[in-house]
């Protein structure tokens, strides 16, 4: 990677945000620019590449604060998500070492992303859609939404649910649908089965509870976490 200097307009184009957002990120330290003696902001390609590669941090901050995110990773509507999911599929199925798990990674990501749309359509609290970022070379996929979260969704059919942790436990273990009487609500159970039968791991946070899935365990590991509005998932393979 060379050290070519990029203008703020060029950097905004590469990252997929506005020039105003970059000025704000420079001011608050999220992505500091180099300032020329004439007062212009400059960036290096390497700096932008490192920034964009922080998929987990960028996704979590969006789930937490609705911070600006790159257009490259934002899927406002379901068809955009599905088109990007197919691109992920193309990459996964092209890697010989992933032959045994490519279909499972693709299916798990599809279930979680589709779930965000299915359970929030018409009910997005503020920003619709999902953050969907992946790096197959790093064996990593990150998904996030600013939806209502699992607890609010499942309380439609299970008003007695106490908190985010109980909601996560139910979502990943029981056949229950937040869109009853439709026969929905099995996507997260499928994710659990996929993890149980493969080397894939999943961290899934909703509200103030985080679930860690690894291997085939009868009891789910759910821990308190710094609250977010919707859901946030990290898939490693």
């Amino acid at each position, binding site marked *: 990677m060379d050290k070519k200097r990029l203008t703020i307009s060029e950097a905004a184009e590469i990252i997929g945000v506005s020039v105003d957002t970059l000025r704000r990120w420079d001011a608050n330290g999220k992505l500091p620019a180099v300032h020329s003696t004439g007062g212009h902001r400059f960036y290096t390609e390497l700096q932008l590449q490192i920034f964009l590669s922080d998929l987990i941090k960028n996704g979590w901050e969006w789930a937490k604060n609705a911070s600006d995110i790159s257009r490259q990773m934002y899927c406002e509507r379901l068809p955009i998500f599905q088109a990007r999911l197919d691109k992920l599929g193309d990459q996964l199925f092209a890697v010989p070492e992933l032959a045994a798990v490519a279909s499972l990674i*693709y299916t798990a990501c599809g279930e979680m992303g589709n779930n965000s749309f299915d359970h929030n359509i018409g009910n997005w609290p503020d920003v619709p859609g999902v953050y969907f970022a992946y790096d197959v070379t790093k064996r990593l996929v990150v998904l996030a939404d600013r939806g209502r979260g699992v607890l609010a969704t499942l309380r439609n059919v299970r008003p007695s649910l106490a908190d985010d942790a109980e909601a996560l436990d139910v979502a990943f273990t029981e056949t229950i649908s937040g869109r009853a009487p439709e026969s929905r609500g099995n996507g997260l159970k499928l994710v659990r089965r996929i993890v149980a039968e493969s080397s894939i791991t999943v961290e899934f946070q909703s509200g103030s509870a985080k679930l860690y899935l690894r291997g085939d365990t009868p009891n789910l590991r759910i821990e308190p976490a710094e609250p977010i509005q919707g859901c946030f998932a990290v898939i490693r393979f």
Partner: protein
Amino acid sequence: MRINLIKFGSRLSSREAGREAFLAIQPTLERVSETEQVEVDFTGVEAFSTSWGDEMLGGLSKRFGNRLALKVTDNPSVKISLELLEKINGRKFKQA
């Protein structure tokens, strides 16, 4: 009659797409006789989710009952999703 799922794509993931696929085959299903078996062939399918499967196989199962049979492959997502659907529905799919 045989339904080749590959005709709906090699990666079958969303509930919405599954519902569209089931609606698309309605005219074909009208031609199935009262005693005919309906065979669903998974050959060539790279990825298959419970959501997609619930829309298609749930609809076919309701309409054809034990005349529905599946010709499955060893694709891991097909295997896991079908097992989960069987568990949820409390009955096994018939194998073709």
